[in-house]
């Protein structure tokens, strides 16, 4: 116990702790982010202060605030996580969880916990991993390889547009990415709560799983587990995936390099585009 108190104090001072966490002895693999090692016991105390209200004492997402919240707080006992660098069906890396805690989830009640010391966030990750036995029986998945980004040319954007049609992204996300496709109104998450597909035109132009092109690449290549969004890793080749990223960027009200290329090309060529939707559109 005195050791744990020491760890909490050390965390408060922002010191880096490199010794193994106490839970490592119980079969839990050590939680590491960069050079930091998480201490689940220290995390437990921080969890009771910052997380318990929504995620609940049992970590099942049934905290006292949960009934007022949509989307619902994450159920850590299910160990199904939306934002991963790892393939669908696998556990995220410690870094994935650390980034999720730090970044927060835009458009949800989960704030960014960036103000907490880094060591505290790593301790929280270590504690979150104690809620499911899956962390003991299987390790994190192997992160997918994200190759260097290809140039965001008009050819790349147009090919991405073809993929948006061919992969039937529009069935949920809508022909213009407004989240209004024919299946959109029927979607539920894995706990049967209604869920909306991402609206690319919404004023908040960030994604739940990050804001960069690399984040966008990972979102559709790993899927958003626990939601209707599947993984496309089996169906989209890496360079083609960059084309889809470039097209998706043109759907957002953002000043991105892709949007600039698209807007420069579009006025003279709009009539050449087939509308996206049922049949052979979008080619």
């Amino acid at each position, binding site marked *: 116990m005195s050791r744990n108190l020491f760890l909490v104090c050390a965390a408060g001072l922002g010191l880096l702790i490199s010794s193994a966490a106490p839970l490592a002895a119980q079969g839990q693999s050590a939680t590491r982010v960069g050079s930091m090692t998480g201490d689940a016991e220290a995390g437990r105390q921080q969890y009771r202060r910052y997380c318990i209200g929504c995620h609940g004492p049992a970590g099942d997402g049934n905290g006292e605030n949960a009934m007022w919240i949509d989307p619902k707080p994450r159920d850590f006992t299910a160990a199904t996580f939306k934002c991963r660098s790892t393939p669908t069906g696998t556990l995220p890396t410690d870094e994935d969880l650390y980034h999720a805690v730090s970044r927060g989830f835009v458009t949800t009640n989960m704030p960014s916990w960036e103000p907490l010391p880094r060591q505290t966030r790593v301790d929280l990750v270590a504690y979150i991993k104690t809620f499911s036995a899956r962390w003991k029986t299987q390790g994190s998945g192997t992160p997918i390889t994200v190759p260097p980004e290809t140039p965001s040319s008009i050819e790349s954007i147009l090919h991405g547009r073809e993929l948006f049609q*061919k992969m039937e992204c529009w069935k949920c996300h809508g022909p213009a990415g407004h989240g209004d496709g024919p299946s959109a109104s*029927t979607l539920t998450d894995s706990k049967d709560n209604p869920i909306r597909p991402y609206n690319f035109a919404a004023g908040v132009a960030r994604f739940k799983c990050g804001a960069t092109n690399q984040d966008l690449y990972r979102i559709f290549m790993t899927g958003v587990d626990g939601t209707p969004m*599947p993984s496309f890793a089996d169906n989209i080749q890496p360079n083609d995936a960059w084309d889809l990223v470039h097209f998706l960027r043109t759907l957002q009200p953002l000043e991105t390099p892709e949007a600039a290329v698209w807007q420069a090309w579009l006025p003279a060529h709009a009539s050449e585009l087939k509308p996206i939707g049922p049949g052979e559109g979008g080619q």
Partner: protein
Amino acid sequence: MRTTSLVSLVLLAGAATTMGATFGSKPAAGSIAGTVTFTGTPPKMRPIDMSKEPSCASQHATPVMTETVVTGAGNTVENVVVYISAGDQPSPAPTTPARYDQKGCQYLPHVAVFQAGQPLEIYNDDQTSHNIHPLATVNAEWNKSQPPGTPPIKASYDKPEFIAVKCNVHPWMHGYFAVLGTSHFAVTGGDGKFSISGLAPGKYTVTAWHEKFGTATQEVTVAAGEAAANFVFKALPY
């Protein structure tokens, strides 16, 4: 189990009677056979509107009906998985893949039964993209897209579990993976009948599972020949 216990279960008393037949000089391997029926009022099968997916709607001359509860003449229940849940000799999982098809925006079969550790291959026979989303809770949950003409998705599950399967693009598509820890199982057809063969003489626990009605178990003693085990689910309309 996702299915809530909307219904209570009634086991047919005295079902574990042995038939005790012996064929030829060698005692034949034992089996357990019976019929699954219901009492009460089950949910109705309702027509599915596939008009949002014309390539699927055109494959069906008449509307496809929901398969949550499929009943037959004589109050029989289809798609019930009957399996040995205790007393069985462990058998290694077969290496032959179980097959699950998406055809006409339906899952064929509605309930795919296979063993933990057995390979599973999922095919898309349609001209539309499906996403295959097995809502596992004991095993890992995953969700993969499968456009038309792509190779089968290969998977397997380590632990026994009844896993609801859905396609989020086509919300009427519902099916199940019944991942079992035994090679001794059967699925009822439209006549509600099942037969589990290849059983050594002994005492077994037999479980019947249905996606809406839940589970029922009974103890059955198998001698040489066929032992009887009938199951009756008590159905409520909702």
